[in-house]
């Protein structure tokens, strides 16, 4: 089915967007690319090249569709309009749905579906009977249990998730089951694409810039993944764009309705809707006839809904520590697993646009200003990275405005950084589409690329990627570089791909050398027995200190430096371990209380750590 869908999209997309010579050239290029892939596949078979055929198929499809996008972006004979862009997006998102469904729904998705099923079948929000008979759920997840925060009474379960998204997908579900529900979200994705193009037009972005960035926005992460999954983020992004456009165009019905929908989708979006309303009411330039009593009433309803329907409490707005702010803020921008730089690099230009606030379009400023409170509340929270979800979950709604900032800068950006971003984006899409389950990653400070490299070389590559989930030195360096880039960025012409290539080589060389800190749960550590602590699917795992639990006879080996070091561990009964040729007795600790103990590593290189007695959860080993 995927191949048939792909063929349909590959033919329909050029017909929809191109005309005359560009159309035929695009179709020719697509056919040529398929021929090349066919020939390469034949060669690969003879050469016994070990590539996952599914990945190869997805990559081939992505490259062919990239050709279409390149023609849309750069050809002269293009049929370009917001509606056509939306249809193109819809085609792509429909193609993404079966790719995302390769593995069952994950995160909050099956719960949203469960609520929708309850609405359709029982006409209520009580999930008690749904949980009692999970074999009937279309998600195929029979392992579901009520989530943390759900109201559970005997025989009744009321989800803590807002019911508005299930209400939106319920008609689709009623018609076509899970596919119908996902199609509903894809439809919202298409509407988002349309609204974003219209937003660009409203804000005076040229057609050339819009066409060039549209594929990166609509078919790049995070939108492309969220548009084919059951999360409220894409509908929220659509409503947010519509709300800002409504405020800008003084169309009260549009923006109040959109803001209300936004808050109903997720109560946390009240932090966006309220500043937006504030702007709408207080900006003298917009004080016109629309500031009427019904408007105030609707706005009041938004706030009321936020206060009553939400499970959140006002005290959540009080930050826990000042340190959490930079970690969250820079993490959202730079974290290797959950940051913009690695997961959706196009929006780095949006961040740079923030630093050129005054010269940015007003729509960008309004959107970002409205989201400022939300971001400030999000940043210090321990779940700033999104938890168990595809990357950038909490800022998906904001990316149309980051894209707008990037579009406003487009004429100034040199081709080289744009090319790097485009290539990286294509790579991310291929990876996410081929291995949809890898979009979910435990928040342990590593990402998929780090794990791959660490496993391949049995060396710690994770320390070279900035991590704000488990803050490291690379994070500090990256933060300084980001601040410098925000200040000095002009066109980025010095960021040549050649420099990136040299950096990759240097990083690889550095990565194969021992680091100063070994986190025992990391992929580069060769585990012989033992288990991850907490387990991978522990709810809110990120609030725990991680580690690797070992018992007598179990061991692990890793590359390390020689000399004195400190070991962090938990062991209620105490334990004895051996590092290299030396044994160490680890004193007992209080339950769930980590202790740090000095140890000595007798040689540099691969060292084995063996548990001789007791049970111990080993967190890290750090050289001073």
């Amino acid at each position, binding site marked *: 089915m995927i191949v048939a869908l792909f063929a349909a999209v590959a033919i329909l997309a050029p017909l929809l967007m191109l005309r005359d010579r560009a159309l035929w050239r695009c179709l*020719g290029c697509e*056919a040529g690319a398929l021929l090349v892939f066919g020939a390469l596949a034949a060669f690969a078979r003879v050469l016994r090249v070990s590539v996952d055929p599914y990945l190869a198929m997805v990559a081939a499809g992505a490259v062919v569709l990239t050709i279409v996008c390149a023609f849309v972006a750069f050809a002269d004979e293009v049929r370009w309009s917001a509606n056509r862009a939306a249809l193109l997006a819809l085609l792509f998102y429909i193609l993404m749905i079966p790719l995302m469904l390769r593995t069952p729904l994950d995160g909050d998705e099956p719960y949203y579906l469960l609520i929708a099923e309850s609405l359709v079948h029982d006409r209520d929000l009580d999930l008690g009977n749904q949980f009692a008979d999970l074999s009937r759920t279309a998600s195929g997840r029979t392992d579901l249990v009520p989530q943390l925060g759900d109201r559970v009474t005997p025989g009744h379960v009321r989800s803590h998730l807002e019911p508005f998204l299930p209400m939106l997908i319920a008609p689709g579900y009623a018609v076509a089951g899970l596919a119908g529900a996902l199609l509903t979200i894809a439809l919202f994705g298409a509407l988002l694409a349309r609204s974003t193009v219209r937003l660009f037009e409203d804000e005076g972005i040229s057609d050339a810039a819009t066409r060039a960035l549209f594929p990166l926005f609509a078919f790049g992460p995070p939108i492309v993944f969220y548009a084919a999954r059951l999360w409220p983020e894409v509908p929220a992004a659509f409503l947010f764009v519509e709300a800002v456009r409504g405020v800008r165009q003084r169309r009260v019905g549009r923006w109040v309705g959109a803001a209300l929908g936004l808050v109903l989708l997720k109560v946390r979006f009240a932090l966006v809707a309220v500043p937006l309303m504030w702007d709408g009411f207080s900006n003298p330039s917009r004080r016109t006839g629309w500031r009427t009593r019904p408007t105030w009433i609707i706005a009041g309803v938004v706030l009321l809904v936020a206060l009553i329907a939400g499970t959140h409490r006002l005290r959540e707005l009080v930050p826990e520590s000042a340190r959490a702010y930079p970690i969250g803020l820079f993490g959202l921008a730079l974290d290797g697993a959950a940051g913009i730089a690695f997961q959706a690099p196009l929006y780095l230009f949006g961040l740079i646009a923030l630093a050129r606030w005054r010269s940015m379009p007003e729509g960008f400023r309004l959107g970002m200003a409205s989201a400022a409170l939300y971001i400030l509340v999000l940043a210090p929270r321990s779940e700033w990275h999104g938890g168990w979800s595809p990357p950038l979950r909490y800022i998906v709604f904001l990316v149309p405005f980051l894209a707008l900032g990037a579009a406003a800068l487009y004429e100034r950006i040199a081709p080289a950084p744009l090319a790097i971003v485009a290539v990286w984006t294509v790579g991310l899409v291929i990876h996410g589409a081929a291995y949809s389950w890898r979009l979910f990653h435990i928040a342990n400070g590593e990402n998929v690329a780090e794990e791959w490299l660490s496993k391949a070389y049995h060396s710690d590559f994770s320390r070279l990627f900035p991590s704000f989930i488990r803050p490291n030195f690379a994070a500090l360096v990256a933060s300084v570089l980001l601040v410098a880039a925000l200040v000095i960025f002009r066109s980025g012409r010095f960021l040549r791909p*050649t420099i990136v*290539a040299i950096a990759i*080589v240097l990083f690889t060389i550095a990565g194969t050398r021992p680091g100063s800190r070994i986190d025992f749960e990391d992929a580069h550590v060769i585990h012989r027995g033992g288990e991850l602590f907490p387990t991978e699917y522990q709810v809110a795992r990120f609030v725990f200190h991680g580690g690797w639990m070992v018992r007598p006879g179990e061991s692990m080996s890793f590359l390390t430096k020689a000399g004195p070091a400190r070991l962090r561990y938990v062991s209620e009964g105490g334990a004895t371990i051996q590092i290299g040729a030396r044994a160490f007795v680890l004193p007992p600790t209080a339950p769930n209380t980590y202790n740090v103990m000095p140890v000595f590593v007798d040689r540099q290189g691969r060292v084995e750590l063996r548990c001789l007695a007791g049970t111990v959860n080993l967190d890290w080993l750090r050289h001073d």
Partner: protein
Amino acid sequence: MLSDLALVVAVLLACVWVARGTRWMAAIECSLPLLAVAIVVFPDERTRLFACGAIVAVAFAGAALVAREGWVLVIAGVALLRWIPLREVEAWRELVVLAGALVLFGVRASRLYSPSVSPGDEGGRAGRPADAGGTPALHLIAVFAVAAVTPVHPGKAALIPLLLAAVMMWDRLQPVLAAALLATVPFARWSLVPILVTAAFALLIPYIGKLRPLVYAAALALFAMWPWSGIVARALPVVARFEPPTGTVRVVGWALGRGEEATLAIPHARHVIVNASAASGSGLPAGTLLGTIDAGTCTRSVRIGDVADFGFTRRPHFFAARNPLPRITRGDIRGYGATAWLHGAGAIGVACSGDFASLRFRAAATLPPGARLQIESVELPAR
């Protein structure tokens, strides 16, 4: 090898340089970090080389479409196709081939019109192929095809590109000569076929403008195989003749001289596949009897064509060899770059109406002195 990697990087930098000033330069330059990623990420050598091949080919194709200095790409492309591995380059002979390729490109690219837009001659006869025609990219493809298959053993064969360039001076002669070369192919020994076909292709460039997309696609796919350019140049049909091994492979490793025989006991079976090759048999023409396989209830002859000399596709031996590629091969590819070669072992099915438990291999009494029938392995049915 690091030196080979340096050569590949130099080729990519040449691609970037020829694309300077165009909007594609940055995209082509992205091949450098992609190459670095491919080298770092893929632990398996073949996968790594395969990825590198595809990345460099795409960058090269991009450069070929926008390049102004085509001669730079000729040097880069010939180096990529012929000079890897660098440690085995025979410098003087390769320089002759390179010079020939440059001259060939010069002759082709110096003509301005294509037949389809020929202004016609003074007599008003339009459509006459008054010149070389084609596009710079097509010329490059033709030059690379000729350069890739040009042997340097014997040394005088290195002059083939120059000879072809000289022939191209006579425009009217080109289609006739191309037709003659193609007509010769069915009768020529296998080692001459790649040369004849590519020479005919180079001569026909002015006439294949309509097939340009197909040619580009085929060229891109073949060029992506530069990490095994020796295979593409000397054993391309392996793609069609490859069949993966079936069943359990038992290595045998026997070499039987003239008239010698040996018996191999196997589990009871009705059908096995024997992988065999010849040694010192590259001069034997197709159909020459190498020996027989006697399964008791049935006998199977082994001929050149079923199998080939094990190393006849090696670069120094290929031109003189008279063997064709085996009909069915297990695709045992050795080496990389221009020196990559295909082991000449062929797969021979032995099927009898009844079970058999032994195979008796007998080398033909007519084998030349020094020639051997080599039994590489036996594939037993999976149980």
